[in-house]
């Protein structure tokens, strides 16, 4: 695959790393919130994020993805997971693969091997986005304050994922459990989301986990 520049962008573990919410110093806020808080927030830090594009209707593409990841290509508006790895539909020809920290380079190589000869794109976007996990009985209320998308369980079962309007910008909402949701946010907007989520959860109580 010499026509594509595949590049190990992550340094060794001794390099200083700052997640998009580094400035919020979430670790210092653990245990400071209300007891029995309605919303708990955790940043799932420094994971490997890869954007994958290709022809979802091509069996060779779906087969190659399965071969590399042991995951079926998810259908529209869903996310599938295998342990720490998840694969999410982002658009008709676009998926997001999230792998444990440090595994993105190997995952890209594996995918490229399995998809050799097909017209695809794989892009490492690990530095540009992060996952916030929200859990608790009032997460749905916070989401209802923030997005006009219908987050009722009838319309938003576990395993669903949508990119949508949120407050005055956009992000991706993923439902990973009965009371557990993830927000996929862009790095440059992370402070806005942090401020927004603190505000929207204030009446229910917000606790931080790391």
């Amino acid at each position, binding site marked *: 695959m*010499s*026509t*594509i*520049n595949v*590049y*190990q*962008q*992550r*340094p*060794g573990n*001794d*390099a*200083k*790393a*700052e*997640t*998009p919410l*580094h*400035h919020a110093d979430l670790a210092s806020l653990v245990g400071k919130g209300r007891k029995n808080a309605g919303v708990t927030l955790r940043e799932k830090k*420094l994971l490997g994020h890869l*954007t994958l*594009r290709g022809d979802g209707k091509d069996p060779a593409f779906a087969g190659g993805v399965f071969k590399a990841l042991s995951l079926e290509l998810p259908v529209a508006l869903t996310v599938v997971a295998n342990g720490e790895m998840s694969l999410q539909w982002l658009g008709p*020809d676009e998926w997001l693969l999230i792998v444990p920290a440090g595994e993105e380079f190997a995952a890209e190589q594996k995918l490229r091997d399995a998809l050799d000869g097909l*017209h*695809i*794109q*794989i*892009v*490492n*976007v*690990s*530095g*540009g*986005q992060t996952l916030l996990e929200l859990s608790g009985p009032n997460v749905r*209320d916070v989401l*209802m*304050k923030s*997005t*006009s*998308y*219908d987050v*009722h369980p*009838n*319309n938003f079962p576990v395993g669903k994922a949508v990119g949508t309007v949120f*407050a*005055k*910008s956009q992000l991706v909402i993923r439902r990973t459990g009965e009371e557990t949701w993830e927000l996929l946010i*862009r*790095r*440059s*907007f*992370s*402070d*806005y989301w942090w*401020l*927004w989520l603190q*505000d*929207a959860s*204030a*009446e229910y109580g917000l606790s931080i986990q790391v």
Partner: protein
Amino acid sequence: MSQVYRLSNGGRIDRSKVLNFTFNGQTYQGFAGDTLAAALLANGVDIVGRSFKYSRPRGIIAAGSEEPNAILQIGATEATQVPNVRATQQALYAGLVATSTNGWPNVNNDVMGILGRVGGKLMPPGFYYKTFMYPQSFWMTYEKYIRKAAGLGRAPLQNDPDSYDYMSHHCDVLVVGAGPAGLAAALAAGRSGARVILADEQEEFGGSLLDSRETLDGKPAADWVAAVVAELEALPEVTLLPRATVNGYHDHNFLTIHERLTDHLGDRAPIGQVRQRMHRVRAKRVVLATGAHERPLVYGNNDVPGNMLAGAVSTYVRRYGVAPGRKLVLSTNNDHAYRVALDWHDAGLKVVAVADARHNPRGSLVEEARAKGIRILTSSAVIESRGSKHVSAARVAAIDVSAHKISSPGEWLDCDLVATSGGYSPVVHLASHLGGKPIWREDILGFVPGDAPQKRVCVGGINGVFALGDTLADGFEGGVRAATEAGFKAVLGVIPKVLARQEEPTVALFQVPHDKNTARAPKQFVDQQNDVTAAAIELATREGFESVEHVKRYTALGFGTDQGKLGNINGLAIAARSMGITIPEMGTTMFRPNYTPVTFGAVAGRHCGHLFEPVRFTALHAWHVKNGAEFEDVGQWKRPWYFPRNGEDIHAAVARECKAVRDSVGLLDASTLGKIDIQGPDAREFLNRIYTNAWTKLDVGKARYGLMCKEDGMVFDDGVTACVGDNHFIMTTTTGGAARVLQWLEIYQQTEWPDLKVYFTSVTDHWATLTLSGPNSRKLLSEVTDIDLDKDAFPFMTWKEGLVGGVPARVFRISFTGELSYEVNIQANYAMGVLEKIVAAGKQYNLTPYGTETMHVLRAEKGFIIVGQDTDGSMTPDDLNMGWCVGRTKPFSWIGWRGMNREDCVRENRKQLVGLKPVDPNQWLPEGAQLVFDPKQAIPMDMVGHVTSSYASNSLGYSFAMGVVKGGLKRIGDRVYSPQADGSVIEAQICSSVFFDPKGEQQNI
């Protein structure tokens, strides 16, 4: 004197909880469960305001949102002021502070009142239009005084300390109104398992059932309400919203609900709580159960305090234990209003008489009143009331309804309360927000909702279904229908049993006749909030305003926050009679959102203060803050503007930063530039078509500057794109253009050239970009990288991979300053560590961080354009003297080629980008300043261009600018002039736009 009008028992109030409140500075007491209006009436407060136009004293008329007079200013502090609150809708809380919004110096002694009484005749409808229109320039002055006199309430002068927010809902069935029909509908829909929202504007659910004399299944109506509410609360998919007014019915069953979460608790919301919430609901089906408003009769001096709606009197007596008087006269044209006489009588108070406009009423309630010995005067009505600040007598006369005249002079009856009922108007406001024309029904003498495309059901009073048993049945049926249509299976329910009553028809009476004609009779008010009289409406029709919409606008009938709740039908009836047509021929005006006033706080929600707009930060922002940067907003980004040291101003800081870059090395955070990863076998061909220049021969390892045009041939973005693999490119865009360029690429790939195999992904946030610029940048970078930086190994316009500060990086040797420059791209999570290592190594080179201002100066010295500053969507590459960047021989007709070859784009004398050098080196041309060739010509001058960028430059030793001038490229050396607002003229010489290092040697060292 405390609460002298409070009955000794009864009402849904908690007499053990006494609440102090103040009205117009005086302290009163009420009970928990009171509305402010109920508490005022309990204390005998007659006058709550002065009227809008005539400044007449006004009292409370109604008990709900239709109240036209008791519209007060609420708030104990400046920051918590809320205007336009109806006292009838405001729950009483301890410490509530309310004041009248009109009446100066106070409502009891109003200076304007005297003017109003004397001048009333001089103030016909259209008075303000007619009097204050000329001279037009004075309108602003007039307006200030009219507003003050009219008293429209005021906004707080301090920031509201409370928080307000939005919540979005999607439901199967939204039920509007929780009276008998709404409760029944919600129950029927809720039992089916549907997602149901029930919203009601009052403090508690129940509507008319809360003050009803009726029983359901033999028990008080309120018991049934409690049971239904309990059942609804237990249903998991049902959301109950009391204190929540459905204010707007918008397209596609989108409705807005204004919920007042804590307005009943105190002046401020309890800590941590939201005061008001705007619910934005998308409903599969809407059930409108908005009920009906009782219509007052229109008679002489019907606005004197002590004239009230009949139903409101019952509400105060039965729900609040307040009797707003001692001696009642009831004037009615229907059976239902008789309940007021019965309630009054049952409370041990004196019913002086009931005047019934009908000949021989024999309905159940009428007979019940007769049996209790209440005096009933048939074919009669109150034709006027008397009293200065409160009613002291009512004149009851025999009337001939069809001939619209009185048939006896009548008698004055001593009383202190006149209750009137002219029938019931279905509340069709929401039903007509989207334009469904209401339809007149003669049998109920009211408008009901007309056909509408919305998926809605109307039940109960809004449909003209008034009898309680029928209303409940209609509600159940509507709820079942809505749930079924939304895809749910309804379950059977039992409708509670109601005692059937015999009710006789209402007679059509709106304006009550008087022995004098309308113009000479005592004022007969139709719309008390806007001070519109029957005479005014007649005058409007006489003056030729025949359309109902014109009558409304000329007289102000039903304007503003009133929305015609009480006066609309009476006004239409008067206009129709005046023109000799029927009410359906007259038609009705339409209603608009909002049904009742909504605070700006609820409209803004949380999108205020620090959450007003998203702010974007780069991965290096904390470093900029620590190093004292001043920031500039670039779109949503915060970018360092300059880094002042030791109290420097911007000019000193920028001069120092520029010098550091030109002399040694500077550091810029360029992370905000848009970056797009492009992959695919046709990536190169795609670039050929999207950029103006050629990309076929760009080798792996090289980078090239590109210009992008829209189809019209005008430049819309630019940037450097590097070839990182034969099928793999990294494109950079302007900071502001990042999103739109990506969209542009996707649109063209998806719609025009789907055959080209190429994909795009934004990597703007993924890569942080550190730019090192200046003659020492190579030396500095070599200390932190393993990349061979040798001039020949790593030449200008190429890129390399390697470690920088121990972190994998892509380094581009490109320049926006004209100096030797390296753009170091690092995965953003690791950028701060790399920056710190570069800064540490940079000390010996006087590494100087610089911001956007210095960047602008340095690039302008080189004549590099900024798209959006030096271009404005009307400039071709040739206009910018960038013809070198146009691939004139490319085989495929790329975007913009056809456009830039249009006749107008290739003509002589277009505005072209040139350098401008003020003749006096200390003068500075303002950006945007217009240019002329002849400053002595007469105004309007022939403008030939304008300044696009302008700076004072230290390294050049003079100020300089870029600008566009007609035919400028052929005028190098000529003079242009810029006349200034102060009359001075700046003279400048047209020159090349490259001021610094024209041969480009500095960037190639």
